[in-house]
Each structure stands twice: as structure tokens, then as C-alpha cells.
């Protein structure tokens, strides 16, 4: 028989041993930090490892193995068969529920948002006691204030009840450790499964400390995707608080034009420091883009693009693509140049794929070129992509030399940001 109980209702309960000696009052419950999933269980649940008790002013931790909780007439009774001091290892590796979970914000992985914990539900089964879910509903809130029973009694007359909402332990990630003195070795591994833009929304809403902590725990690839999605203020905040090495690693994973946008927001000396730390190849592209004024096409374009000489064959081009393994957006517009490296046409990936390998590019390329200059104003771009239904526009200089491409995503993002700033 499983006994379930709420964290909030155990707090302040006086614990006695079998000889009715007072052991202390419950002030926190410690659980395992990184529970392991066992075969016969569907979800990983952290086991309760220790109780934090208070006797007058002294705090002590006792091992939970010897503790039993019983419910009698709706009242909890906690007894301790044998008082064993919890080991330092248990204490340091334990997650204190009151300090880190109760009343704090956690991430609801299914709802992909931050929620505030009103209570924690625990259950005792034959193998031990486990934290199974967090209570984020109205009922939990009122239970804490001591109103849930009376309100539910009233609502019962109307055949209704207070809305209760629980989230299983597997579907949450605790993030707020600001009240802890020791640093936990938590990895937030569950977070890497969230979509980067959801993660970005969550990180935006965190406190300053948690923001950096959660971000730096992400792997570089995820971190780069998340950083792209963040608002400029948060990008700056995070980069300023991250170690230079980690920040440079993350920035190297991002497209140069995105990095350039961020660098514009940073303090000049910080930007310089990061650029110096990044690999020369990545930072060179970024520096090039930084030369452009804010409202010109150059500041929005990406200087990572694919270009082929018009005399090579389709087969050769495809082989080259296989070797380079370009990102999706680099393929939106494949550029074709003449022998003097001047842009003469574009070609679509579709045309490359459907043609025979021996065909030379100039036979199939699209010479109806739509281009912009790198010092054109950004405002002109939206009209062009919508008029010609393009996914990317080639950018050239006065001498028809390719400078980069502007991808539709960047244009849309720029438009959305402009609208947002107007709203603000």
C-alpha cells in the first residue's frame, strides 16, 4: 500500500524515536539529485535520503532509512527507529526540497514554461519514499494557506472541486539553487531536449543568476541555437557573465551574421576580447560584417554562401556540396560566377539535382539576376523577396563581386524586431 503525502504538511512536525524521545522538528526533506531510472519503473523518481531537523536553534540531518511516516485521522506521524546522522556525502548530494523546489520556479518540460511550485507530493512504497510530483495548482496554493479543506467542502455542495494540477517529477527541471551555499552538480540534461526557442523564452524569464547557470549547462550546439533566439539584452547579459572560453565556443557554432549582430550590442572591449578568443576563421567573417552600418544590407547578410564557376559540371557541383555539407539556408540560393569571380547567375538546388551530371552550369543557370548592393538600405529587402518570391538575395558590390547572401529568415526577423520596438 502506497502512502502519499505533501511536503508542506510534514514541515514543522515533531519527530520522535521509538522511546518517545524528541528528535527534532522537520524543516526540510532531502532527495537524490539525479535519480536513476530502474527497469521496472516508467519514470525516474528521486528517493528521499535524509530529513533536515531543527531542535531549538540547532540543525541536524538524519538518515531517512530509519524513518517512517504514517497517516492517522488525516494527521501525519513521523517516527525514527534509530537516529543515524546522515553522512556528509548524503547531505551534499541531496536536493533540499524546501530550499530548492517549494515556492520556487521550475521548468515544466511538457508545458515548456516556468511554473511556481505550491507543494511537492511524495509517496512511500516498499522500496522507500520518493518525490513523485510537484503541485502547481490552485488547490496546492490554498492548502498552504489552510483554506483548501473548507473551500472544497463548500464546492462539494455544488459538485465541484478546486482545480488541482500536478506535474510528474520526470517532466520538471529544478533550476533555482540561489538559496544553496554549495553548488550542485546538476546537469539540466533534460533541457537539451527542448526546442531552442522555447528554451530561450524560459531563460528570458529567469533571474540573473539562474539565467547564466542554466545557459552554461547546455551543450555548445544547443547553447548556440538558444543564444540566437534570445533578446539582445539577454544575449549581452549572458555573454558578459559566461567564461570567455565557453562564450567563444558557443559563438563559433553560430552563423557569422548572427554573431555580428550580437557583437554590435556588446561593449567594444568585450566584443574584442571574444573575437580574439574565437578561432581566426570564424572571427574573420564576423569582423568583415561588423564593418557595415546598422541600416545597410551588409549588416544583415550572411557571408557564408555557396558559389560555383559557370563552367563546372553539375556532377562536380554536387560532389563539392557533399564535401562542404552546408547548412540549409546556404542552399536557398546557389551563386554562379564567371572567370573573373563576378556574379552572373543563380541556380537552384532542384536544377542541380534533376540534371544529368555532365551538364555544365551555364547551360541551366538562371541569368535573370535579382541582387542588392551591400550598402543598400535594409528597408528595400522585404519588398524584393515578396515580389520575386525569393528565399535568399545575393549581395554584391559595385564591381559585381559577391559579398554574401541575405536569407529570408534574417529579413523576417528584422521586420518582427522593428514591429516589436514600435510596440514597446
Amino acid at each position, binding site marked *: 500500500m502506497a502512502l502519499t503525502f505533501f511536503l508542506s504538511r510534514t514541515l514543522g512536525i515533531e519527530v520522535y524515536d521509538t522511546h518517545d524521545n524528541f528528535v527534532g522538528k522537520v524543516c526540510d526533506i532531502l532527495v537524490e539529485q539525479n535519480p536513476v531510472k530502474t527497469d521496472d519503473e516508467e519514470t525516474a523518481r528521486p528517493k528521499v535520503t535524509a530529513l533536515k531537523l531543527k531542535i531549538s536553534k540547532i540543525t541536524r540531518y538524519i538518515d531517512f532509512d530509519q524513518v517512517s511516516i504514517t497517516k492517522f485521522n488525516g494527521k501525519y506521524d513521523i517516527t525514527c527507529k534509530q537516529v543515524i546522522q546522515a553522512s556528509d556525502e548524503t547531505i551534499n548530494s541531496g536536493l533540499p526540497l524546501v530550499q530548492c523546489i517549494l*515556492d*520556487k*520556479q521550475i521548468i515544466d518540460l511538457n508545458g515548456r*514554461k516556468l*511554473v*511556481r*511550485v*505550491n507543494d511537492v507530493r511524495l509517496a512511500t512504497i516498499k522500496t522507500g519514499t520518493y518525490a513523485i510530483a510537484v503541485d*502547481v495548482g490552485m488547490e496546492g*496554493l490554498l492548502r*498552504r*494557506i489552510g483554506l483548501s479543506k473548507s473551500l472544497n467542502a463548500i464546492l462539494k455542495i455544488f459538485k465541484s472541486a478546486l482545480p488541482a494540477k500536478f506535474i510528474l517529477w520526470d517532466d520538471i527541471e529544478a533550476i*533555482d539553487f*540561489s*538559496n544553496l*551555499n554549495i553548488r550542485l552538480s546538476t546537469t539540466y540534461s533534460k533541457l537539451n531536449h527542448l526546442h531552442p526557442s522555447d528554451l530561450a523564452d524560459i531563460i528570458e524569464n*529567469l*533571474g*540573473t*543568476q539562474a*539565467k547564466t547557470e542554466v545557459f552554461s549547462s547546455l551543450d555548445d550546439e544547443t547553447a548556440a541555437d538558444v543564444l540566437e533566439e534570445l*533578446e539582445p*539584452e*539577454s544575449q*549581452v*547579459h549572458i555573454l*558578459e557573465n559566461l567564461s570567455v572560453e565557453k562564450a567563444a565556443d558557443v559563438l563559433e557554432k553560430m552563423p557569422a551574421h548572427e554573431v555580428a549582430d550580437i*557583437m554590435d550590442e556588446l561593449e*567594444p*572591449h568585450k*566584443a*574584442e576580447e571574444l573575437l580574439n578568443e574565437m578561432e581566426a576563421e570564424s572571427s574573420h567573417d564576423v569582423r568583415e560584417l*561588423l*564593418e557595415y552600418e546598422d541600416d545597410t544590407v551588409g549588416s544583415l547578410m550572411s557571408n557564408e554562401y555557396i558559389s560555383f564557376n559557370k563552367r563546372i559540371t553539375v556532377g562536380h557541383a554536387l560532389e563539392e556540396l557533399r564535401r562542404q555539407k552546408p547548412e540549409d539556408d546556404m542552399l536557398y540560393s546557389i551563386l554562379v560566377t564567371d572567370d573573373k569571380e563576378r556574379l552572373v547567375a543563380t541556380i537552384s538546388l532542384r536544377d542541380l539535382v534533376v540534371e544529368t551530371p555532365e551538364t555544365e552550369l551555364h547551360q541551366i543557370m538562371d541569368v535573370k539576376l535579382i541582387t542588392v548592393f551591400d550598402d543598400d538600405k535594409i528597408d528595400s529587402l522585404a519588398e524584393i523577396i515578396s515580389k520575386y518570391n525569393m528565399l535568399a538575395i545575393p549581395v554584391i558590390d559595385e564591381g559585381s563581386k559577391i559579398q554574401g547572401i541575405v536569407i529570408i529568415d534574417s529579413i523576417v526577423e528584422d521586420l518582427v524586431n522593428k514591429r516589436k520596438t*514600435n*510596440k*514597446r
Partner: protein
Amino acid sequence: MIKNKKSFLANLAIFFAILGPGIITGSVDNDAGGITTYSVAGALYGYNLLWTLIPSFIVLIVIQEMNARMGIVTGKGLADLIRENSGVKITFFIFIGLLIADIGNTTTEFAGVAGSMEVFGISKYISVPIVSFMVWILVVKGTYKIAERIFLIFSVSLLTYVVSALMGNPHWSEIGTAIIKPKLTFNTTTIAMIIGIVGTTIAPWMQFYMQSSVIEKGLKIKDFKYTLIDIVVGCVATVVVAFFIIVACASTLHPNGIQINEAKDAAIALKPLAGSFASIIFAFGLFVASVFSATILPLATAFYVCEAFGFEAGIDKKWEEAPEFYVLYTGILIISAAIILIPNAPLIAISLGSQVLNGILLPVVLICMILLVNNKKIMGEYVNKPINNLIGWSAVSILIGLSLLLLILPFFS
């Protein structure tokens, strides 16, 4: 191009980018409730309560500086911090109190809308529904930020109170004497008036508003000196406007023994004494201030309540995503507007009641704040300096003392 110059112009640019939270908070501070309280104080006591603005000013600066510092260092709202550190019961008490007080305050704002429009001959049954609907649409349709800017520009019109005051030919020497040596008899009315002035200048909900706007602006601790300037400018503006409202009423209404109950009475009474232009300016200022605060107050309240209890909130969310937030927001607006439209509604009692509630909540919020801002785990190296604590705790004790005095005094007279 990476530029590296730190000229005066660059500093000025940083200041204007940071500018906002303090000045907006300061402008919202002089809302319909404030204008009413200052007008009544001026009419009833002449220049004799002007001195209360000096301690209010100091406390206001100290409190807002703490809010800004907490917001910048933690990145968390005041409601969040209180919930996380003071427990759910205190949180519940504060926010239920805040909700009720703010419904009362919003009602006062609509009374300001109704009153000022009546000066121009427009019935409240027309002005209040129209204004409340427009305020609602403004927020729900997400054009709030533009509105905030427009209001900020309009709030400059609060300075017209200076014109109103000067047209009443104030006696500067008398003002000087009254500030240094006020003639006052201490009784419940006087104490209530003093609490009223302090309470309306340092309204509890403003602390939450200030901290959130600092976070939203994404301010950084290294730019704190600019934030401080912003706060001081805001506080000076607040107190200067308050000063001139009191002076306007004190130099015209007080010598003629005209008693008023509402801000609009002041506008009407000014007409024969300082000319119809002064009266119109007074009414216009009242209207702008009322609409501004009627927009911000319900929104802010809904936001903190949701923040504290963990509901989703924010005007960038859709109705389905944050139902509690929008229900609260709409509810506060509808209830407040509806109260005004009830014929013979006890408006003065409502405005007095919400001020008393503000007076009770203020020390509670302040105590929570001072405890938080002294907590090393939360604030790290940015905890309060002794001088902040001295002023903070003195303000709390004086406020509690005054409130207690107000409760006890009737038994001795």
C-alpha cells in the same frame, strides 16, 4: 566597426537609453488619488503641510533606489522575491491586500476621469465607459508600450500645475515660514492627512512597478549611476508637482475657507479665484494623470498577483495562455469603472479606505523589501549600506507609529 569612445555624448546616450523607470514611476505617482490628497491638504491646511514633502522625498528616493538595485542584481520581480523568501502566507496577505487596495485606487482614477470631464461639461456616464473601454483595448491589443510613451509625454502636462499655482499669486515668504515652522494642531484629521500624503507619494504598488520596469529595461549594475539620476529626476518631478498642487490650492482656496472633497472641486473652485484658464489646466492635468494611472494600475496589479502565485502573465501572452492574468485585469477595470457609475456611490469613503489600506500595506512591503535587500544570498555584495537601512527602518517605524497613533488618538479626545 568596433568603436571605442567614451565622450560626454556617449554618456548622454546611455542615460537616455536607461531613462524611464524612475521617471515613469514618478509620473504615475501623481495620480488622481495624489492630486486629490494634495488639493485637499492645501485647501484645508494652507501651506502648513508642505514640509511633509521633504521626508517623503528622501524616503521615496531611498526606496526606489533599493527597488532598482534589487531588480538589477536579481533579475527577479519584487513579488517573486517575496514569495520565494517570505513564505506563502505573507505573500497571500500582501497580494490580497494589494488587490483590494488597487481596485480602490483604480476607482479613484476613474473618479478623476469623471471629475475632470465634468469640469468640461461631459457626463461621467459618457466619459467613464469610453475611457475604460479604450484603456482595455489599448492593453489587450498590445499597443500598450506606445501608449506608455505618449502618456509620458503627456505627463509633462502635469507641470501645468506650476502655472495654475503661479496664477493664484502664492505668498512665497509665507510658504518659507510654513515649511520651517508649520502651524498645526495634532489631531486625528491632521495625522490622517499626513499619512494620506506620505501614503499617496509612496504607494505600495509602485515598488513592484518600479522593480519590474527596471528588469524589463534590462539595466546593468555598471550603469547604476544613470539609473540613480533617473530615479532622482523622477522623485524631484513627483515632489515638485505635489508642491505646486498644494500651493495652488493653499494660496487660493485656503484663505477663502473653501473646503473641498475631490480634485475636481479644486478645479471648479479655482475658476473665480485664479481665472478659468487655471481651472481648465488643473482639470486637464487631472484627466491625463487619471487615464495614465488607470491604464498602468490594473495592469500592474494583475501582473504582480500572477507573478506571486505562479500564473502566466504579460501583455505579450494571448488570452488562452494567461487566462488568470486577463481575467484579473479585466475584472479590476470593470469593477472600478462600475463603482463610479453607481449613482451616489460613496467615492470619498472608497478613496479613504484604499488609502488606509495602502498605509497598512506600505510598512509590510517595506519590511519585506529591507529584509530582502539585506540578504547576502540574494544580493551578494550589493546589500544595503547602513545609511539605507537607517532611513528605511526609520521610515517604517514612523509610518507604523503614525498609523498606530491614528488608531489610538480617538480614544483620548
